[in-house]
């Protein structure tokens, strides 16, 4: 029988997890296909999933009155999408919209939080990985805020 375990095991975000831990994740996982333009989630909705992206790209957007949707970041193959499922009040802070045909594995947040409470080793491992993603995104955001291209001298 085909399971999602080999796919999860190969994804950069989950690489190196023990087989037993991957088995737990498989129990909370489902395959997802998103068409270009389709919303993955919308700001304010309940955040009860995160996504392991296998192919395609997703834009994180915020709607600004008078300007429309503003893309603040794009993520793609090899990335992970969504961490609001980890923290109360479990609500999405942005819109996420597929830019291309996107394939992903969705992991159920309720299910995973429960499993992590039961297995703190798994919980710690996942938190370490999410912390690294959050750190990278924070650093990238700080660079974005620097506006490094704004006033560079002429070449």
């Amino acid at each position: 029988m085909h399971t999602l375990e080999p796919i999860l095991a190969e994804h950069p975000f989950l690489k190196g997890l023990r087989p037993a831990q991957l088995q737990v994740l498989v129990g909370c996982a489902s395959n997802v296909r998103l068409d270009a333009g389709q919303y993955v989630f919308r700001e304010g909705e309940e955040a009860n999933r995160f996504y392991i992206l296998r192919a395609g790209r997703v834009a994180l957007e915020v709607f600004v009155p008078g300007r429309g949707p503003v893309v603040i970041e794009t993520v793609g193959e090899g990335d992970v999408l969504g961490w609001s499922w980890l923290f109360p009040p479990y609500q999405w802070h942005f819109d996420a919209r597929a830019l291309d045909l996107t394939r992903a594995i969705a992991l159920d947040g309720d299910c995973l939080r429960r499993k992590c409470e039961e297995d703190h080793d798994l919980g710690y491992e996942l938190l370490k990985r999410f912390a690294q993603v959050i750190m990278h995104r924070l650093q990238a955001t700080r660079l974005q805020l620097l506006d490094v291209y704004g006033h560079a001298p002429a070449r």
Partner: protein
Amino acid sequence: MVPRPWRVLGRRQETRDTFTLELEPVGGGDMRFGPGQFNMLYVFGVGEVPISISGDPARPACLVHTVRAVGSVTAAVCRLRRGDVLGVRGPFGHGWPVAEAAGEDVVIVAGGIGLAPLRPALYHLLAAREKYGRVVLLYGARTPQDLLYAREIERWRGRFDLDVQVTVDAATGGWRGNVGVVTTLIPGARFDPPHAVALICGPEVMMRFTIRELQARGVGPARMFISMERNMQCALGFCGHCQFGPAFVCRDGPVFRFDRIQGMFGVREI
């Protein structure tokens, strides 16, 4: 060294404040140059400014410079029209190690107008494509409207032997490309780190973070080359304005192998 007169053959607006000039030598001749070298452009009665050559090294009779108007001289260069004449001294400095990179993957990381000095290297790589492994261009700009050479990038993206990834720091609805700083493209870029050579040009802070990401991928400091920018005036290593530790950027650079300046790169006072 006396400036030679070159005539403006064409002028194209790239972005709000950036223009590309094509120049031909008054009275014929040409200028052979290596990718990454620069010229001193002299607007008569205004002043002189160092500008990287952004054209094709295989076309030495047509000099191409992409200039961003940020000061009085660069603004004057950008105001030149077809038929105007300016003085050119050059080419100066050491450029990108395109010959030494033969047989390797080549990763080009450009930020903003940093694509201009890298374009000759890309022309060279594409003209001798069979000599190189994977060739990857990672290009970041402020917004979609700030992308240089947009049509050419579109053509490059259509090639099967060149991997082009473009990202912008900020975008609104119409943009369907990547959003995020250029360093975010590095983890997913397809190249073999131990056998890759990285050519990097952009604002210094962007290059600093790019180097970190490339190091995290396993690219060694002796395989990374950066183009430095300092206040170059004589372009011959005499005046000392562009001194960078024991080196002069005009004479010993502007392209440096990173391990050779690593110790100075992080020193804030230099």
